[in-house]
C-alpha cells in the first residue's frame, strides 16, 4: 500500500505555514528563532519527498547542507541573542524597539 506523495508535501506546507505563523505571533526571540528552524525542517521534508519522487540523490544532499547551515546559523543567532540580552536584559521583541519600525 502506497502513501500519496502529495500527503508529504501538504504536511511540509502545513509545517512551513505554522513556522511562519510562529515567526509572526511569538514574542520571545528564542521561540521566534525556533519557528525559523521549524520552517527549515519543513523545507527539508519537501526536499526528501521530491528526491523520492524524482529518484534523485541531489535532493537529499541539499538537506544535508541545510542541516550544516542551520547549525552555523544557530551558533551565530544564539550568540547575537546572548549579546543582545547582555545589553538589554530582555528577550521580548516588543521591548527591543529603540528604533521605530
Amino acid at each position, binding site marked *: 500500500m502506497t502513501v500519496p506523495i502529495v500527503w508529504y*508535501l501538504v504536511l511540509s506546507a502545513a509545517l*512551513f505555514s505554522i*513556522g*511562519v505563523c510562529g*515567526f509572526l505571533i511569538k514574542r520571545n*526571540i528564542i521561540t*521566534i*528563532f525556533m519557528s*525559523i528552524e521549524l*520552517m*527549515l525542517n*519543513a*523545507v527539508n521534508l*519537501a*526536499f526528501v*519527498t*521530491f*528526491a523520492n*519522487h*524524482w529518484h*534523485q540523490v*541531489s*535532493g537529499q*544532499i*541539499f538537506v544535508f*547542507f*541545510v542541516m550544516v*547551515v542551520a547549525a*552555523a*546559523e544557530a551558533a*551565530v*543567532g544564539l550568540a*547575537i*541573542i546572548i*549579546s*543582545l540580552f547582555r*545589553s*538589554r536584559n530582555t528577550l521580548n521583541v516588543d521591548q*527591543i524597539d*529603540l*528604533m521605530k*519600525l
Partner: protein
Amino acid sequence: MNEPMTPSMIAFSPALRILPEILMTLTGVLVMLVEAVLKPRTSRKPLGIVAILGTLAAIAASVYQLFLPAGTAFFGTVQSDAFSVFFHLVIGCIVLVTLLISLDYFEGHTSFVGEYYALILFGATGMMLMTCSVELLMVFISLEISSISTYILAGYRKRSATSPEASIKYFLLGSFATAFFLYGIALCFGATGSTNLYEIAKGVADGASPLLLTVAFGMMLIGLGFKVSLAPFHVWTPDVYEGAPAPVVGLMSTAPKAAAFAVLLRIAYGAFGTAIHIWMPLVWIMAVLSMTIGNLGALTQRNVKRMLAYSSIAHAGYLLVAFTALAPMGIAAASFYTAAYAAMNVGAFGIISYLSGYNEARTSLSDFAGIARRHPVAAAAFAVFLISLIGIPFTAGFFGKFYVFTAAINSGNAWLAVLGLLNSGVAAFYYLRLLAQMYMVPVEPPREADTAHARPAFILAMAILVLAVFALGIFPGRILDLARAGAATFSGPANAASQTVPVALLRR
C-alpha cells in the same frame, strides 16, 4: 572538468574559475592567523593593509578570468564568464573601498578589529561565489556565508544600544527570508528534478508544471526580495541601517545586494528565460511598490541614515525595472545600475561615518545644518553622491537611470518608466532638502566634538568613489560594454563558450 575538451581550449586547472574566491579566503585565513600572534592593544592596521592587498589580488584575478573562455567547472557548480567578472569587479571594488574607510574607523573602539577584516573578506568570498554559481546549492551556501557575516558585522558596535538590535532584526528577518528562498528551491527541484540552473532551464522549456514553477519563482523572489530590501519585504531595512555602523551599512547596502541581484538575474533570465510570462507580473508589481514606498518613506524621515535606507529601497525598485526589459538589454542595464548605485551609496555612507563619528550621535537632518562651512571638502563629496543619487547628468546615477528606463521603454513598458521618472521627481525633493540643509542653513556655533579629521586612507577611498561617480557619468562606455558582454553570456552555454568580446574590449 566535466565538459568535453575541445582542441581549441587550452587545458587549465578548474581552480582558476574560482581564483578570486580562493585568494579572498586565503587572505582571510592569513588575517586570522596574524591576528593571533599580534599583541593585544596594538594597532590592527597591518591586518587591514593585508586585507586590502588580498582584495586587490582578487580584483586582478577577476580581470584575468576575462581571458579564460567562459565555462563551468567543478561538475557544473560554478561558471566564470563576463557576467560573473563584472559582478566580481563591483563587489571587489566595494570591499576595497569599505576596507579603506574602516582602516581607522574601529581603531581603539573595539578589540575585534582583526576579526572585522576577516569577516569582510569571508563575506566577500560568499558574495563573489554567488555571482558565479550556476547550481542552486552553491548559491544557497554562498548566500549564507555572505548573510551570516553581514549579520555579525551589523552588530559590531557592541557597546551602543542600537547595534545589537540591528543585528538581531537583520538576523531574524534574513533567516526567515532564507527559509522562503529554500522552499522556492525545493519547489523548483520538485518541478524539474534538478537544482542546476541549466537543467532547470531545460525543464522549464520542456513544459514542467507552470503552476509549480510560478509558486517556486514566487518563493525565491520573496527570499531574495528580503535580501535586497524590495517592498513589501523591506521592513527591516531602516532599522538595520540606522543601528549598524556606517561603513558596514555602506558595504551591506551594496555588495550583498549586487550579489543577490546577480543571482536573481541568473535565475530569471537563465533558468526561467523561456517562461518570462511567469515572473514578469511579479517583478512589475514589486518594482512599482519598491519605488513608491521607498521614496514616500524617505520623505518623512528626519534621520539621514534612515532616509538613505528608504532611498536604497527605491533604488532596488529602479533596478528591478530593468528586469522587465528584454534579455540582453535588461541584464546590461541592471548590471550597470548595480555598479553606479554601489559607487554613490558606499560614498554617502562613508561620508556619514566621517561626519557623525563612531558613536553616530549626529545623524539627524538638523545635525547636517551648515556642514558645508565646517567640513567643506566632505560636504562637497557628499553633495556629489547625493546629486548622483538624484540622477543629475554627468554623474553615475544619471546613466544608471537612463539605461534602465530606456531598456524598459524599448521593451514596451513605457508606463513603468513613467512611474519611475515620477518617483525620481519625488526623490529629488528629499535629497535636495538634505543638500539645502548642508549649504543654505546658517552655521551654528561649532560644537566641541567637531575635531574629526580625515585620515589618508579615508580620503583615498572618497577620492576613488567621487572619481568613479564621475567616470561612470561621463564615460560610461567601457563599463557598459563589459555589462553587455556579461549579458551576452545569457544567450546560452554554447554561445558563452565561444566568447571573445571582453578580451577585445580590454585590448581596445
